C-alpha cells in the first residue's frame, strides 16, 4: 500500500505539465486555423466564397504534398532543404521527356518521379551510411538538383504538355466548389501517411528512431533502415508533388519551388511537429499547410503587399518553434 502511494506521488507533477504541452501542440494549430479563418472572413467579403476556398485548396496542394515528406524527415529529427529543388527537377524531367523527346507521357511521369525518388535515396544513403548531418546533406543536394534543373531545361519553360502530365490540374465540382484532383491527392496521401505512421510497425519505428535513436537501436529497431526508408519515401512524395505542380501550372518551370523547402518546413512546424524528432502528426502538417495558405491568401485579399506575407510566415514559424521549445524545456 505504501509502495503504491509512492509510485503515484512521484509521477504527478511532470505529467500534468507535459499533458498541457501536448494539448497545446495538438489543439494550437487547429485554433490558429479557426481564428485566422474567422478574422479574414470578417475583414474581407471575398474570403469565405466558394471561388476563394477553391483557390486556397489549389494553392496549398503542392506544398501540402511536399510537407508530408518533410514531416517524415522532421519526425526523425532531420530536415530536408532539397525538397523544392528536387521537385523542380522532377517537373523538368517529366515535361522535357514528354514534350521535347516525345517519350510516352506515362513513362515520362514515371521517370520524373523516379529521379525524385533517386534524390531521396541519395539523401538517405548520405545520412545513414556516411552519417552526415541531414542539414548539410540536403543543402548539398538542394544545389545539385537546382543546377541540374537549370542545365537540363536551358532556363526555358516547357509548355504544351500532353494530357496525362497535367491530369492533376483537372477539376470537378463538389458542394458548389471547384476542386482539383491534385488537392484530393494531397489529402489522400496525408491520410495514408497518417495511417502508416500511427498504425503500423514501421510508422511507430519512425517515431521511436526520431525520439531516441539509441533506445530504438538497442530495442532491435533497425534505425538506419528506417531512416533510409523515410528519405526514400520523402523523395517519392516530392516526385508526386512535381506532378501536382505541373498539373496546376500547366508548364515545366525551372524557376518553380524555390521557396518550397522553407514553406514545407513552416507548414510542418506550424502544424505542431517538433524539430527535435519523434513528436508530431502529419494531420497537424495538413492543418499547418492550410494555416500558411490561408494567411497568404487572406493578406492578399486585404491588399497587403506580398512582402508582408513573408514577414507573417516568419513570425508564425518562430512562434511555433518557440512553443515547441518551451514545452520541452518545462519537462526537463
Amino acid at each position: 500500500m505504501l509502495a503504491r502511494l509512492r509510485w503515484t506521488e512521484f509521477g504527478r507533477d511532470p505529467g500534468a505539465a507535459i499533458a498541457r504541452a501536448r494539448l497545446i501542440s495538438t489543439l494550437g494549430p487547429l485554433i490558429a486555423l479557426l481564428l485566422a479563418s474567422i478574422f479574414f472572413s470578417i475583414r474581407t467579403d471575398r474570403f469565405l466564397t466558394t471561388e476563394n476556398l477553391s483557390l486556397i485548396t489549389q494553392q496549398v496542394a503542392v506544398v501540402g504534398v511536399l510537407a508530408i515528406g518533410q514531416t517524415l524527415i522532421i519526425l526523425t529529427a532531420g530536415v530536408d532543404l532539397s525538397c523544392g529543388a528536387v521537385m523542380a527537377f522532377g517537373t523538368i524531367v517529366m515535361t522535357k521527356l514528354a514534350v521535347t523527346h516525345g517519350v510516352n507521357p506515362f513513362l515520362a511521369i514515371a521517370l520524373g518521379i523516379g529521379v525524385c525518388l533517386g534524390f531521396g535515396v541519395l539523401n538517405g544513403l548520405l545520412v545513414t551510411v556516411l552519417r552526415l548531418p541531414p542539414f548539410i546533406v540536403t543543402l548539398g543536394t538542394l544545389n545539385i538538383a537546382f543546377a541540374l534543373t537549370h542545365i537540363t531545361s536551358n532556363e526555358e519553360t516547357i509548355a504544351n504538355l500532353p494530357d496525362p502530365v497535367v491530369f492533376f490540374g483537372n477539376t470537378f465540382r463538389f458542394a458548389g466548389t471547384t476542386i482539383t484532383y491534385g488537392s484530393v491527392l494531397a489529402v489522400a496521401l496525408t491520410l495514408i501517411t497518417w495511417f502508416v505512421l500511427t498504425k503500423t510497425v514501421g510508422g511507430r519505428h519512425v517515431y521511436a528512431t526520431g525520439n531516441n535513436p539509441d533506445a530504438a537501436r538497442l530495442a532491435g529497431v533497425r534505425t538506419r533502415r528506417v531512416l533510409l526508408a523515410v528519405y526514400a519515401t520523402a523523395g517519392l512524395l516530392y516526385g508526386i508533388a512535381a506532378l501536382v505542380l505541373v498539373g496546376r501550372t500547366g508548364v515545366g518551370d525551372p524557376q518553380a519551388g524555390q521557396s518550397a523547402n522553407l514553406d514545407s518546413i513552416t507548414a510542418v512546424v506550424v502544424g505542431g511537429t517538433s524539430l527535435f524528432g519523434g513528436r508530431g502528426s502529419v494531420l497537424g502538417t495538413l492543418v499547418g499547410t492550410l494555416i500558411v495558405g490561408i494567411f497568404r491568401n487572406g493578406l492578399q485579399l486585404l491588399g497587403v503587399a506580398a512582402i508582408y506575407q513573408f514577414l507573417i510566415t516568419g513570425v508564425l514559424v518562430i512562434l511555433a518553434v518557440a512553443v515547441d521549445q518551451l514545452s520541452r524545456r518545462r519537462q526537463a
Partner: protein
Amino acid sequence: MSAVAARVPVLEARGLVKHYGVVTALDGADFDLYPGEILALIGDNGAGKSTLIKALSGAIVPDRGEIFLNGTPVHFRNPLEARRNGIETVYQDLALAPALDIAENLFLGRELRRRDIIGIVLRVTDRPRMLREARAHIADLKINVGSMKQSVETLSGGQRQGVAVARAAAFASRVVIMDEPTAALGVRESGMVLDLIREVRARGTPVVLISHNMPQVFEIADRLHVMRLGRRVATITPASHSMTEAVALMTGAASSQGPTKG
C-alpha cells in the same frame, strides 16, 4: 539462494579478451551466473565491468574467449541475437523513448501485429493486445504507473526504470542484465527498483547487476563478482566478506584469493 557449484551456470564465460586499440578492456575474464541468483558485478572504473556486460549482451564481440548459455557455446554478433536467446539488458539511461507511451516502449522492436490479413500484409499493430499485455507485465512486477497510454516522459525516474525493468523481465527467458539501474535515482526510488530486482529473481530469472553502490550491492546480491584490470579477481558473498574487504579486492589492496573463486 547461495550458489550451488554442481549446477550448470545459466550464463558462463571463459577467458574473454577485448582490446580497444592499445587499451585492454578485458584480459581473460571469466564469468558464471547460476539459476535464481542476483549476481553483482563490482570493480573500480575501468576494471572492465561494462565491457564484460556488453560482451554478454551482444553489444560487442570479444576478440577471444568463449561464452556458454546453459553449457552450449554461443556467439552473439549483436544485441538482437542475445535477446533472441533470452538475455535482456537494461541500459543505464538510454533504454526508453520518452515520447512514446508505456505500452509502445514495452513492445518497442517487437510490436505485436494483428493476426488478420492487414496485420500480415500492412504490418498493422495490435494495439489493444499490446495494451492488455503491457498492463499484465506491469502488474506482474507490482509497478503502479496508471495508464499504459501515458508517455514515458510523464513518469518519474523510478517509474521509468520500472518500465525498463518490466520490459526486460517480460521478454527475458534466461537472464536479465542491469547496468547501474539506480544510478540516477533518489534513495526511495532506488529502494523501489531494488524491490523490482528481487521480484524478477522471485519469478525465476537470474539477474546480473552492475553497481557502484556498495551498501546496495551487499543488501541485494547473492554473490559478488569482483573485477580488476579486465579480469575476475574473486567471487565472494555478502556473508563471506565485508564491504571493506570487497573494496580492498577491487583496488588490489588485498590478495585475490576469494573462497569461491573459479
